[in-house]
């Protein structure tokens, strides 16, 4: 199964929950960082990197000697990435979405595929946890194409190992976040009980609900703000699987790069229980539910 750890608001504890769940997961786990703009999971899991490769996107390369200045490419391009200035064809590779439309329509064979570097995909092992991440090149605007590369590698690694996949998603609810959540079997929303937390939590719930996947919430820093998130979850039948209390010790453990589930025995038990609940919600399996109650 693939579990997406998401949130509307940034900084609510997605990475904390992802790293902690991976560390207590019963059975083989693959931890994947799809927050490619600001990947942080490796800072807590400290994986040994076994391999890495650059990811690229196809962009057009113009051959002036063949170009007949017909304008078909600049007419179809919706991203202002290729334009005809008088008789001269100019490309703006940074603007290109890699759709291939210009190459498809060019009647003169004047365009050939070139590539733009998106960033890096790397993988390895953190103890018994498999690890995979993407890291966007600084200056690159588009994260979804790199996320597609990471997801390709993820499918390969999952097929090889048979592991359950825990995906640390980017914040927000626009295209990168939706992209990250799309292929999952279950969504876990991490929020904090504050007005900002609630507002963005609601956005995320509304964005992801149409996907019809099992969805549940974890409240981080419980006790800090108000009761809005809990009331919202009750109204929308969204199960709250865990509340991580606001505690200076937890915050300090995080600030020292520790996996929170390993910071105290109580936290470890809390995350083991969370993992068991997730497994039964994702499978909808009555037997697993019984097990979870015994755990």
């Amino acid at each position, binding site marked *: 199964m693939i579990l997406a750890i998401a949130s509307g*608001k940034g900084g*609510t504890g997605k990475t904390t929950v992802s790293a902690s769940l991976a560390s207590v997961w019963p059975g083989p786990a693959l931890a994947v960082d799809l927050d490619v703009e600001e990947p942080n999971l490796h800072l807590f899991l400290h994986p040994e990197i076994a391999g890495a490769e650059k990811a690229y996107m196809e962009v057009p390369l113009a051959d002036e000697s063949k170009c007949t200045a017909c304008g078909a490419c600049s007419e179809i391009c919706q991203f202002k990435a290729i334009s005809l200035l008088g008789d001269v064809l100019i490309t703006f590779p940074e603007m290109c979405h890699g759709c291939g439309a210009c190459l498809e329509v060019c009647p003169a064979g004047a365009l050939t595929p070139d590539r733009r570097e998106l960033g890096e995909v790397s993988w390895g092992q953190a103890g018994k946890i498999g690890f995979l991440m993407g890291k966007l090149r*600084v200056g690159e605007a588009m994260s979804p194409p790199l996320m597609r590369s990471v997801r390709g590698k993820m499918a390969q690694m999952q097929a090889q190992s048979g592991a359950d996949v825990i995906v640390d998603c980017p914040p927000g609810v626009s295209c990168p976040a939706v992209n990250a959540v799309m292929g999952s079997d279950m969504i876990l929303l991490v929020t904090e009980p504050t007005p900002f937390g609630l507002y963005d939590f609601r956005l995320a719930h509304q964005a992801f609900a149409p996907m019809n996947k099992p969805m549940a919430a974890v409240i981080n820093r419980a006790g800090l703000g108000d009761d809005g998130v809990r009331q919202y979850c009750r109204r929308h039948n969204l199960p709250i699987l865990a509340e991580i209390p606001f505690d200076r010790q937890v*915050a300090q453990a995080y600030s*020292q790069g520790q996996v929170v589930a390993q910071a105290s025995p109580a936290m470890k038990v809390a995350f083991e229980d969370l993992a068991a609940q997730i497994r039964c919600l994702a499978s909808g399996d009555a037997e697993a539910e019984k097990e979870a109650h015994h755990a």
Partner: protein
Amino acid sequence: MPEILIISGKGGTGKTSLTGALAHLAQNKVICDLDVDAPDLHLLLQPQARQIHQFYSGNEAIIGPELCTSCGLCQEKCRFEAIVEGADAFRVDPLKCEGCKLCVTLCPAEAIEFPQRHCGTWQISDTRMGPMVHAQLFPGQENSGRLVALLRQQARELSDENGYELILSDGPPGIGCPVISSLSGTDLAVVVTEPTPSGRHDLERVVELCRHFKVPAGVIINKYDLNPDQGQDIAGYCAREGLELLAQLPFDPAMVQAMVQGKVITEYQQNGLTEELARAWEKIIQMAGRKKAA
């Protein structure tokens, strides 16, 4: 009139709470929320809408099922895996369609329409701290960069017409499309970080991005007392990199208490933290002025 942008790389470091406080301290400005994906500043400033506009950007492909011959060419050519095969016809997954028009152009049955995409709303509002320009992108939409550019344009026009002296913007998290759109051509970036491995890591990436776009940056270390050693480390990094350290703020639960009441921290209490913020604001104004003069 200088544009000042608050960013962080990592989410949840306190961008919006601090932007609210700086908006309270600043005179004669336009306030802008450039986090169009998950905006929160309005929760502190309770804007009253003056004008509400719809935001259309780009187009999306829609297959007419009665015209589709199920030849499958669109699915074969689409690079975004956005075409799904149905029982009687193919259809487009709107969340995956990037609006590139390739399928529209190639379809031999001319079965694919290409209407404009309604991506969100934007508005100009009044707040107790001055005019505010803000937006809400609909879930799952792209083109957040274009919406950010539009908001900045509106803020500049509002400012020119009414003689406001600066634009103060709350930025999005990350380093991708909306951040690049917020940052390019702005006069000063204030990077809010926290003394954690993630805060530090993301600070370095966002500072690199500022350099890429030649935007001067200052740094605020928020909640520095959660890990004073890590805080020191970040201060050292700033000194080495020639980044002005604008403030080191202690963790204070009053930040959340103020938020719950819909207030900014400088309205809620006066103490060491708010004094440090006021000093930071003086430095920010100086830095932005220096940049503008140069």
